[in-house]
């Protein structure tokens, strides 16, 4: 039996995934575990690995297609097996367009190899970059004339695209005035014959306040859009509260120096904080929870998310079971996921299962900040920079390295007292890491 390649559900709420790029072509031999397709989900871009070894075939979703999760997008035929086309399971949800003007329904276009076409038609199609699947034919077999007719229609259609603006009725003077004033002729109301825009209509239109460049609209990536949606959802549904605590990090600083020397690895403060937060959460499991459908769901494992800024937004790769990892392992894991996050190469597993998030903006010189809870988690720890600050020690001012921690919480999942206990325990550990045992 051939093995199905399925659009995976990488998170609970995911309904569809978008095919970014096939890394393997139909007919290619693939090995189990080898990346075969790039998929963009609500959160990240991931490579899907071949679920079996064999020959890739029956690819039904093309680059750009948005496909419901659970849909078979290809088959991998084992040795001696023929890839058999399988219908999309009955009752599969219709393909939804998330974005982009064209959504190809999976399975709509037959693969090029199965299309009947004369050799000359194929040659012409290749020369003109024509997808034979789009060429109509009356004879059932695509011939030269069919391809040429398609090319001609495409030419006309492309030409029409460029003339859309000119199809607006407007006098030459109105066009010139609009252009001079930086007005879009299409936005004006025409008072002339047949609604034609006249010079007076341009005069009536309000010129942009600043005649200079209009504000630039920046198209956003899927990652950015999802960030915006999730933060809006969190901000508008999760009642936030914040606990702020300044901690002395003299010991933390010397610990990092010793640990780096001792292990030979590049240990960062974030690594130490992951270690300490994981240990604290083990004692305060209420912080590792989520508000879900009227109940509090406690997570079994201590999986800590790290907020990572990438070029097109924010992603939160997860260090799983952080409480079980030794420092060098933590550092290696952190370095791995952060670098892959920045390269856009996170795997589905990298972003799943986070229970609490740490966001560190200390490297940007930020003293302290209030983070927005990363839903459905109960809390996020905002970490500021380490700086020498004046503090009172035994009634005397003293200069010590300190760090300001701000804990943001979803009040539905945890209350102030329990969150304060967690933060207090964490602060104690930071000020005296030896307590870690």
């Amino acid at each position, binding site marked *: 039996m051939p093995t199905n390649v399925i659009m995976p559900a990488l998170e609970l709420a995911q309904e569809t995934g978008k095919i970014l790029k096939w890394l393997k072509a139909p007919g290619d031999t693939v090995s189990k575990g080898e990346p075969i397709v790039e998929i963009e989900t609500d959160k990240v871009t991931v490579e899907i690995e071949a679920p079996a070894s064999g020959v890739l075939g029956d690819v039904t979703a093309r680059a750009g297609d948005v496909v419901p999760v659970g849909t078979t997008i290809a088959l991998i035929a084992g040795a001696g097996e023929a890839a058999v086309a399988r219908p999309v399971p009955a009752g599969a949800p219709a393909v939804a367009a998330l974005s982009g003007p064209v959504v190809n329904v999976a399975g709509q276009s037959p693969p090029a190899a199965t299309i009947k076409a004369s050799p000359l038609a194929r040659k012409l199609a290749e020369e003109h970059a024509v997808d034979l699947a789009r060429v109509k034919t009356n004879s059932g077999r695509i011939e030269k004339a069919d391809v040429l007719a398609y090319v001609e229609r495409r030419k006309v259609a492309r030409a029409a695209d460029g003339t859309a603006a000119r199809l607006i009725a407007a006098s*030459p003077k109105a066009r*010139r005035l609009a252009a001079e004033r930086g007005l879009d002729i299409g936005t004006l109301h025409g008072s002339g014959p047949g609604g034609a825009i006249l010079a*007076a209509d341009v005069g009536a239109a309000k010129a942009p306040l600043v005649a200079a460049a209009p504000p630039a609209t920046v198209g956003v990536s899927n990652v950015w859009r999802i960030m915006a949606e999730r933060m809006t959802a969190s901000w508008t549904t999760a009642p936030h509260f914040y606990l702020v605590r300044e901690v002395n990090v003299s010991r933390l600083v010397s610990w990092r120096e010793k640990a780096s020397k001792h292990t030979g690895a590049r240990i960062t403060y974030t690594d130490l904080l992951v270690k300490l937060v994981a240990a604290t959460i083990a004692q305060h499991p209420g912080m590792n929870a989520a508000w879900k459908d009227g109940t509090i769901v406690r997570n079994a494992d201590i999986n800590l998310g790290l907020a990572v800024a990438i070029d097109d937004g924010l992603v939160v790769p997860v260090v799983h079971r952080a409480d079980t990892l030794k420092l060098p392992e933590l550092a290696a894991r952190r370095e791995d996921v952060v670098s892959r996050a920045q390269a856009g190469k996170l795997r589905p597993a990298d972003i799943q299962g986070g229970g609490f998030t740490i966001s560190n903006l200390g490297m940007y010189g930020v003293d302290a900040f209030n983070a927005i809870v990363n839903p459905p988690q109960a809390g996020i720890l905002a970490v500021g920079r380490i700086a020498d600050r004046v503090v009172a020690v035994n009634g005397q001012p003293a200069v010590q390295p300190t760090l300001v921690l701000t804990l943001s919480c979803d009040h539905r999942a945890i209350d102030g007292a329990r969150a304060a206990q967690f933060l207090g325990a964490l602060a104690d550990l930071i000020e005296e890491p030896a307590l870690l045992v």
Partner: protein
Amino acid sequence: MPDTAVRELTYGEAVREAIAEEMRRDPRVFLIGEDVAEAGHPFKTLLGLVQEFGTQRIIDTPISEPGYAGIGVGAAMTGMRPVVDVMFGDFITLAMDQIVNQAAKVHYMSGGKLKVPIVFRTTLGATRRSAAQHSQSLHAWVSHVPGLKVALPSGPYEAKGLMKSAIRDDSPVVIFEDKMMYRVKGPVPAEDYTIPFGVAEIKRAGTDVTIVATSSMVTVALGAAKLLEEVGISAEVIDPRTTYPLDKQTLIDSARKTSRAIVVDEGYERYGVTAEIASVIADGAFYHLDAPVKRIGAMDVPVPFSPVLEDLTVPSEKSVFEAARALCGKA
């Protein structure tokens, strides 16, 4: 104190005065044509000239347009300055070879050694109930031909000034007088003056629409402008005075100012003077136009003999008024 400032002449008298003054000024000037001497021309425009200048300089000919046109071209090539009278503009068809292939070409084909300082004096204009062969306005035909200059006097003042310029010009000039204007009176200076070719005159300043009009259509346009003023539209009326050379810049500048233009001419509308001038304006004022350039010419039909029908074929104050109002979006 001469009464030059207020002296009025008819259009016909102005033409006669121009020819007489030039004949007195230059002995090489003579006039030749049908019924020009004793008859003083069927339109009575030349009355008295033969008495002053004699039949040696006011020469009656048989009915033979190609013949006397050829005499004129030959005389001009050999140093005379003839005024050739073609009674009706419709008859220039008979003299076309002399006008188009001879007069217009000789200077060029002789390498500039020969000049043809000739004036073809003829008429245009309908509504005289003269039927299809005596009512046409064919000035577009000669305006089309390189080597010819074409003048269209729109009133008595222009009739005298343009005629004198035509006679003094070293190139062949065809001057079309509107036969319906001979009795129209207007101020004409008694002293010597000329109107330069290729210089349009703004007859009336305005801000909303430019009406370019030729010959008697200038009067029509001025009448329309008055009607337009009553509905709050300010029309600028321009008389190009010569279709070649054409004062393109004045027309373009006006159209740029008003953003709208109508061209009115009594020649047939299709392929006509209106088309040429409209194209000049569209080309030069395109990015200043708020409406297409509108043309109003004579209906593209043989001019009817029926007075009712004939009147319908030519532009009128009313038709120009309505076209201008529609162009300004106030119809």
